[in-house]
């Protein structure tokens, strides 16, 4: 099992990495002891989006499928949670609502994915179709202001957004503040480990092989479409998890969390971080969300301008992602220091070249 966690498809390996990982986890676990509960709640809030980023990293970085419309599934599960939580009543059923809404998002991903993948759509078109679906959903939800748009007692409310659903709860105990925070940390660790194991397993190897060359993978006897669909459903399910958690955190969701600027966000996080590695995505998305949150306090629009600039800069300057690039530099520097080689630039250059080829 540890072999799967530490396999070849993920970059962070070895004792140093895992000690850093444990140190960060420990800091995260004791953080609520030092901060007031309002800050802890806010912290939990931007951990919500990590799942969507990890899902996109799996689809885009490992599977080679760039979906521009992850907020489609975010929205479906977000609204799904709202509708289910209101209809089923509060309390422990909210947990069921969470699970069900994620399942609904996965079913939606399965249907959309079937048509796209079996239709042989790839590359640009994959993104365009998912984005179109997303924009149509946002447009549709924006038009549902009238009282005739309701599911049971749950009103969709158009642009004003849906509200009135219960937050996650077990019996009478509402999961808020530090309780929610710890649940988020636990979920992130579980999802992160599960994804690491997935991409390092034989299934993960096929997914990567499909990204590299679908024909070759097909010739080797794999039905690549099944693997692509699996990746798409898992990635979209994670976007759905983010959506359901978002609605339950704020007891509120509007179509604007599905529309164009929102749809660009996961792409920015993952592109900036480095799409080809889960750890880089985790770290980078966290940093960006933190930064975004800080700037949004001053101006939402300015924050979005900055996100756009960041996307442009990433694509032009560091197509593999900034966090991944910096991470590699640090590791390089570290290993060179460990070896305590006499600084011979020529030998170094030779070693680097042979590494690359």
């Amino acid at each position: 099992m540890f072999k799967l966690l530490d396999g070849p498809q993920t970059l962070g390996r070895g004792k140093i990495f895992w000690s850093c990982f444990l140190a960060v986890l420990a800091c995260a676990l004791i953080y609520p002891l030092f901060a007031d509960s309002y800050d802890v709640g806010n912290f939990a809030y931007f951990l919500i989006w990590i799942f969507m980023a990890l899902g996109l990293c799996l689809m885009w970085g490992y599977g080679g499928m760039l979906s521009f419309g992850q907020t489609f599934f975010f929205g479906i599960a977000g609204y799904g949670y709202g509708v289910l939580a209101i209809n089923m009543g509060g309390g422990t059923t909210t947990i069921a609502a969470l699970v069900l809404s994620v399942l609904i998002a996965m079913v939606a991903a399965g249907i959309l994915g079937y048509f796209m993948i079996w239709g042989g759509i790839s590359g640009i078109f994959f993104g365009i179709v998912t984005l179109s679906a997303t924009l149509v959903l946002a447009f549709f939800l924006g038009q549902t202001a009238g009282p005739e748009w309701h599911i049971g007692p749950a009103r969709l409310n158009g642009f004003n957004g849906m509200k009135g659903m219960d937050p996650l709860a077990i019996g009478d105990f509402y999961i808020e503040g530090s309780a929610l925070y710890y649940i988020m940390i636990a979920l992130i660790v579980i999802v992160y480990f599960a994804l690491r194991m997935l991409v390092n397993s034989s299934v993960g190897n096929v997914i990567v092989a499909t990204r590299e060359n679908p024909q070759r993978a097909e010739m080797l006897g794999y039905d690549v479409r099944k693997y692509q669909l699996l990746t798409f459903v898992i990635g979209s399910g994670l976007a759905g998890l983010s959506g359901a958690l978002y609605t339950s955190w704020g007891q509120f969701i509007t179509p604007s969390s599905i529309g164009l600027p929102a749809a660009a966000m996961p792409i920015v996080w993952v592109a900036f971080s480095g799409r080809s590695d889960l750890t880089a995505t985790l770290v980078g998305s966290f940093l960006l969300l933190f930064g975004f949150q800080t700037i949004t306090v001053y101006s939402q629009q300015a924050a979005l301008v900055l996100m756009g600039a960041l996307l442009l800069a990433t694509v032009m300057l560091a197509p593999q992602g900034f966090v991944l690039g910096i991470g590699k530099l640090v590791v390089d520097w570290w290993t060179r220091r460990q070896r305590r080689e006499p600084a011979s630039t020529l030998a170094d250059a030779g070693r680097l070249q042979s590494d690359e080829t």
Partner: protein
Amino acid sequence: MSAELFSLFYQFADVFAFLILSAAGLAIVFGMMGVINMAHGEFIMCGAYVTVGLVNLGVPLPIAQILAAVTAGLIGVVVEFLIVRRFYKRPLDSLLATWGLSLIVTQSMLLIVGSAVRGIGTPEGSFAIGEYTFSTYRLVLFGCAVAVLIGLYIIFMKTRFGVIARATMQNAAMAKALGARTGRIYVVSFGIGTGLAGLCGALYAPTMTLIPTMGATFVVESFVTVVIGGANVLLGTAPAAVFLAMIRMTLNASYGQIIGQIGMLFAVILVIRVLPEGLSSVLVRRGR
């Protein structure tokens, strides 16, 4: 009876014009370079704002519209020079770059001009057939859409530029080896593409409220038309627009705008399941 028929044609023409005008620019860039310009909606927005600004300054509407299209085209040339030209070998990255650009432009506009701008009313004028009245401007839009198609046909089929451009579309490396300046072809076609986007914005500016996010109103239609049209502008985009306009007109008339849009999306998903390369691939194969 003829009034009903004309009414049907009028509704079809309305949707058709919208699809052609919003998709033509995107289709040219896509067909030529295999790149989808995610900032397409922002060029449309640019055309609309320039038009309204000029009209508010006292410039007559048609001249303002032409100037707006030219402005968008020139900005497109600058964008090609600064950003897009680095990405011809990496189409997915070009998509991300233009998307970043789109975010920057939309949100900066929101910061600078705010969300409301004084609009200009739709040019007056309507006519009646039987018991129905129709707005003349909508027919003008339809005329413009047809004119754009004819103009593109002439540019691509009758001029020297068109021959070289089509050669570049088919095989850029080969065209270059034969002495075509593909770099220049790319700049010009990107300029034409964004200019057409600007024209679309300019033409629709009098009919809608101007907001910095208005580009999003057009993008779904334009993307969807290009996706099912495929890479060939003339053989793909026009039939795709006819097909989608039929579906949309029917659904709009019986169930309303939202169902029309959703139905169109379903149609697209079904079409790409059957024809992943778009309509033009079938038509091109038939033609051979």
